C-alpha cells in the first residue's frame, strides 16, 4: 500500500508548526496505524531526520494516551476505537491521510502530534475523587446495596479513558463529556454523594478556568468517544451543577 501523508510538524511549544508531506510505500493492511507511523519514523531516522513525535502507550485501546486527528476525525474513521486499534485496512492504496494533533487552547502542542493534556488532570484533581480514610480494614464497598441500573451507569461513566477525543471532535473544544463522566461516576453512587455538590462546582470551575469551550449539544463528542460515553452524563452534570449552585 502506498500512502501520501500530511503531518503536522512543530519543533516545540513555542515554535510555529506547519504541515509536512511524506510518501510512504510498502504499508500492509494488517499494520496498525501507529505501526505505520513507526515505519515512517524508522525511515526518517535512517535518513538522519527527526522522527515524528506522537503519543502512545498501551496500544490496547485502554490507556487513552494516543491522540491523533486523522482526516478530520479523532482516532480516525472507525467508531469506538482509539488510534492504536485502527488498522491500515481502513484505508486504500493511494490515499492521502492528514494527521494533526488535538486542537484546543487547553491542549497546547508540545511537539509535532503530542499535546499537553494536564488540563484534564487538573479537572480531575479539583474533585474527581472521594475522601475515604483507608486502613488495613476498609469497609467492604459491596456491603452497601446499589441498584443495578445505577451501578451500570456509574461504571459506564467510569470507562472514560480521558483521551480528549471529545474535546478534539467538539466544534467548540468543550470538555463537557469528559468532566461529566468524571462527575457522574461518583454522583451515581452513595459513596460519591457525600461530596457531590462540592465536586461538581469545583470540577466545572476548573473546566472553565482551563479555557475549554461551551457545550452546544451537537453530540459530536458522544459519536467520537472511543468508549461510547453518553450525553446523558452531560445532562446529569448540568442537573448536579444547578442543584448545587441553588443550594449554595
Amino acid at each position, binding site marked *: 500500500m502506498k500512502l501520501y501523508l500530511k503531518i503536522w510538524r512543530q519543533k516545540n511549544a513555542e515554535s510555529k508548526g506547519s504541515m509536512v508531506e511524506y510518501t510512504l510505500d510498502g504499508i500492509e493492511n494488517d499494520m496498525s496505524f501507529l505501526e505505520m507511523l513507526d515505519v515512517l519514523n524508522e525511515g526518517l531516522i535512517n535518513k538522519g531526520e527527526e522522527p515524528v513525535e506522537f503519543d502512545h502507550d498501551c496500544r490496547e485501546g485502554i490507556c487513552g494516551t494516543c491522540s491523533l486527528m486523522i482526516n478530520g476525525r479523532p482516532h480516525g474513521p472507525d467508531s469506538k476505537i482509539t488510534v492504536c486499534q485502527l488498522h491500515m485496512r481502513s484505508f486504500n492504496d493511494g490515499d492521502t491521510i492528514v494527521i494533526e494533533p488535538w486542537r484546543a487552547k487547553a491542549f497546547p502542542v508540545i511537539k509535532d502530534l503530542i499535546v499537553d493534556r494536564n488540563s484534564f488532570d487538573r479537572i480531575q484533581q479539583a474533585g474527581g475523587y472521594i475522601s475515604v480514610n483507608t486502613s488495613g480494614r476498609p469497609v467492604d464497598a459491596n456491603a452497601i446495596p446499589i441498584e443495578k441500573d445505577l451501578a451500570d451507569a456509574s461504571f459506564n461513566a467510569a470507562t472514560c479513558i480521558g483521551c480528549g477525543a471529545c474535546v478534539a471532535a467538539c466544534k467548540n473544544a468543550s470538555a463537557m463529556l469528559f468532566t461529566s463522566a468524571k462527575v457522574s461516576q461518583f454522583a451515581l453512587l452513595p459513596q460519591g454523594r457525600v461530596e457531590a455538590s462540592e465536586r461538581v462546582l469545583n470540577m466545572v470551575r476548573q473546566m472553565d478556568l482551563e479555557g475549554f469551550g461551551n457545550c452546544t449539544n451537537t453530540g459530536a463528542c458522544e459519536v467520537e468517544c472511543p468508549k461510547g460515553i453518553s450525553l446523558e452524563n452531560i445532562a446529569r452534570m448540568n442537573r448536579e451543577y444547578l442543584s448545587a449552585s*441553588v443550594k449554595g
Partner: protein
Amino acid sequence: MSGLISSSLARKVVMALSGLFLVFFLAQHFTINITSVIDPETFNAWSHFMGYNPIVQYALQPVLIAGVIIHFVMGFVLELQNRNARGINYVKYKGSANAPWVSRNMIWSGLVVLAFLGLHFYDFWVHEMSYKYVAMLPEDPTRYHAETVEKFAPFWRTVIYVISFVLLSLHLWHGFASSFQSMGVNNKYTPAIKKFAKLFAVVIPLGFAFIALYHHLNPITH
C-alpha cells in the same frame, strides 16, 4: 450562587430558558396569525387587543424584547468563547461525520432570524408605534387584517419572510430539544420531547410561511 453567573453551564441555561420563552411566544404568535387566514374578524379583534391592552403593551412586550436581546447577545458571547477555545483551526475537520449541519450552524441560522426580526420590526412594530404615537391616529379595530395582507403584496418581502421561516425551522430543529439537555433533562421522556420539538420546528415556521404566501396570493381587491 455567585459562581453561577460566570459559569459556562449557567450561560447555557440562560440560552435554554430564553429560547424556550421565545418558543412559547412563537406558538402564541402563530395562533393569532393563523386567524388572519381563517377568520379576519377574529384576527382584527385579537390584534386590537394585543395592540392596546396595557398589560400586553407595558409588561409582556418589554419582557419579550428582553428575551430576544438576552438570547442573541448570549448567543454571540458563547460563539466568541467557543471560537477562542479552539485556538488553531484544524487543516482538515470533518464535522459532518459526527454532528448534523443544523447543530453546527446555529449561529448562522440565528443570524438570519435576527436579520429577519429587524425587517419584521420595521414592517409591523415601527408601523404600530408610528400609527399610535407619531401620527396619533384614532383606534380602529378593523384595520389589522387589511394592513397585514397589504404588507405581503410585494413578492420580495414574501420571499424574504419564507426564507427566514425555513432558517427558523432549522434553528428550532436543534435548539428546542437542545434546551432541555442544557437544563439537565435527559431521561425516559427525552425521545418524546425530541419528537414534539421536531414537529413544532416544522409545523410552526412552515405555518408562518403558509400565512405569508396565502396573503401574497390572495390580495384584497377594492
